[in-house]
C-alpha cells in the first residue's frame, strides 16, 4: 500500500495525462473515506453530502491541484490533518454558496458577559463563597461590585499568556471537558489540563486580590 505522501508526490509529479489520471484515482481511493466522512459530517442530508463530496473532489483537482500543492510547500502537519481542515472549509464554502450564510443564533456580547460572570464566580469562590452576590439582583452595591469585578477580570485576562487564555476560553466559554482540551491543545493527559487550569486560576485570583477584589462586598 502507498503512503499518503508518496501518493501525493505521484499525483503532483505525474508528467502526462494517463499517469495523472492513474495517480488521481489512487489518491481518491485512499482518501475518499475521510473526505466522505468530512462531507457527511457537514450535512446530514445524504444528497447534499454527496454534492459536497463531488465539489470537494473538483476543488482539489482545480487549477492543477493548486490546493494540494499548497500542502507540499507548507508541509508542517500530517497530510490527513491538513486534508481534513481543507475539506471542511471547502464543504462550508459549498454549503454557504448553496444555502446562504448561517445566521448567528444570538448576540455574542451577552454570551461573553455570561462567560465572564461564570469565570468571575469561579475565581471568587475561594475569596468569599458564602457571600457571593447574585448578579441578577438590582441592588446598586451588588451591581457596582459586579461591574468592578468584570473590569478587573477583563484587564487581568489580557495579561494572561496566549496559551493560558486559550485554555480558559476552551474551559469557560466553550465548556469543553479536560479530555477534549488535552486533545486540542496537546496536553499529555486531562490531569495536566486540570493542573494548568488550577495554576492559571490561582494567578488570576492573586492578581484580582492585588487589585482590591478581596471580598464580595464593594
Amino acid at each position: 500500500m502507498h503512503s499518503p505522501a508518496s501518493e501525493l508526490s505521484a499525483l503532483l509529479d505525474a508528467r502526462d495525462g494517463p499517469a495523472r489520471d492513474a495517480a488521481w484515482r489512487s489518491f481518491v481511493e485512499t482518501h475518499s473515506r475521510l473526505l466522505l466522512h468530512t462531507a457527511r459530517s457537514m450535512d446530514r442530508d445524504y444528497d447534499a453530502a454527496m454534492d459536497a463530496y463531488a465539489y470537494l473532489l473538483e476543488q482539489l483537482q482545480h487549477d492543477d491541484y493548486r490546493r494540494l500543492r499548497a500542502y507540499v510547500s507548507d508541509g508542517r502537519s500530517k497530510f490527513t490533518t491538513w486534508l481534513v481542515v481543507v475539506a471542511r472549509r471547502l464543504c462550508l464554502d459549498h454549503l454557504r454558496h448553496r444555502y446562504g450564510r448561517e445566521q448567528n443564533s444570538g448576540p455574542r456580547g451577552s454570551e461573553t458577559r455570561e462567560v465572564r460572570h461564570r469565570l468571575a464566580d469561579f475565581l471568587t469562590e475561594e475569596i468569599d463563597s458564602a457571600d457571593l452576590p447574585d448578579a441578577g439582583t438590582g441592588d446598586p452595591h451588588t451591581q457596582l461590585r459586579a461591574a468592578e469585578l468584570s473590569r478587573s477580570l477583563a484587564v487581568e485576562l489580557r495579561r494572561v499568556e496566549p496559551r493560558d487564555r486559550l485554555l480558559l476560553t476552551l474551559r469557560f466559554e466553550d465548556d469543553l471537558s479536560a479530555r477534549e482540551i488535552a486533545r486540542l491543545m496537546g496536553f499529555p493527559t486531562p490531569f495536566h489540563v486540570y493542573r494548568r487550569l488550577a495554576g492559571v486560576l490561582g494567578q488570576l485570583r492573586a492578581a484580582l486580590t492585588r487589585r482590591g477584589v478581596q471580598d464580595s462586598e464593594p
Partner: protein
Amino acid sequence: MDAREHSGMHLEPGDVAAYFDGALSPSDRSRVELHLAECDACRDELRDVARLLRTRPNRRTWYVPIGVAAAAAAAVLLFVYPGRDRTAAPTYREPVVTTTVAPVIVAPRGTVEVPRTFVWTAVPRADLYRLTLFDDTGHALWDTQVADTSVSLPASIRLRQGGSYFWKIEAQTGWNRWVSSELIRFSVDSR
C-alpha cells in the same frame, strides 16, 4: 471562490493542522493560540477537525481480508458437504430477503461542463462498482470497475461538446450479484 474569504481574518489551513499536530514553532504556536482564544470560528474548526480525525472510518483495506475470509469460509462449507443437492430450496430457511438499495447517480446529470469525475451513492455491503458510459447511439464508450463511489474520467475518453451521453452504475452486493442504478442522461454544455 477560494477555500476561504478567511485569509487575513482567520488562521491558514496549515496553521490549524500544524497546531493540532503539535508541529508549530513556539512563536507560531503563541500567535495561533492568541488567535484561537479570540476567534470562535477557528476554535470551532479546531474542535471539528479533532472530532473528524477521532471518528474517521477505518481504511477500506481492512475489509479486504474479511471479505476474502468470508469467501474462503463459504467455499469450505460448500466442499465439506458435496453431496447436498444445491438446486433444491432449503426447507429450514426463509426466502432470501432482497432489500438491497440501488446506487443513485449524483453527478453528472442534466447539462454539465465536460465532467471530470463521476459520483454516485454507496450501497451497503457493496465492495465493487461497475460504471458504464454510453453515447447517444447506445455504444459503450467506457467501462470500468472501482471500489469507491467516484471515479475520474480518463483523458483517453473525449466527450464532445453538445453531445448526449448515458451512464449507469452497478454495485456488486454478493457473489455474481449486481444491483443497477437507473440509466441517467447528461449533455455536455456546448458553450
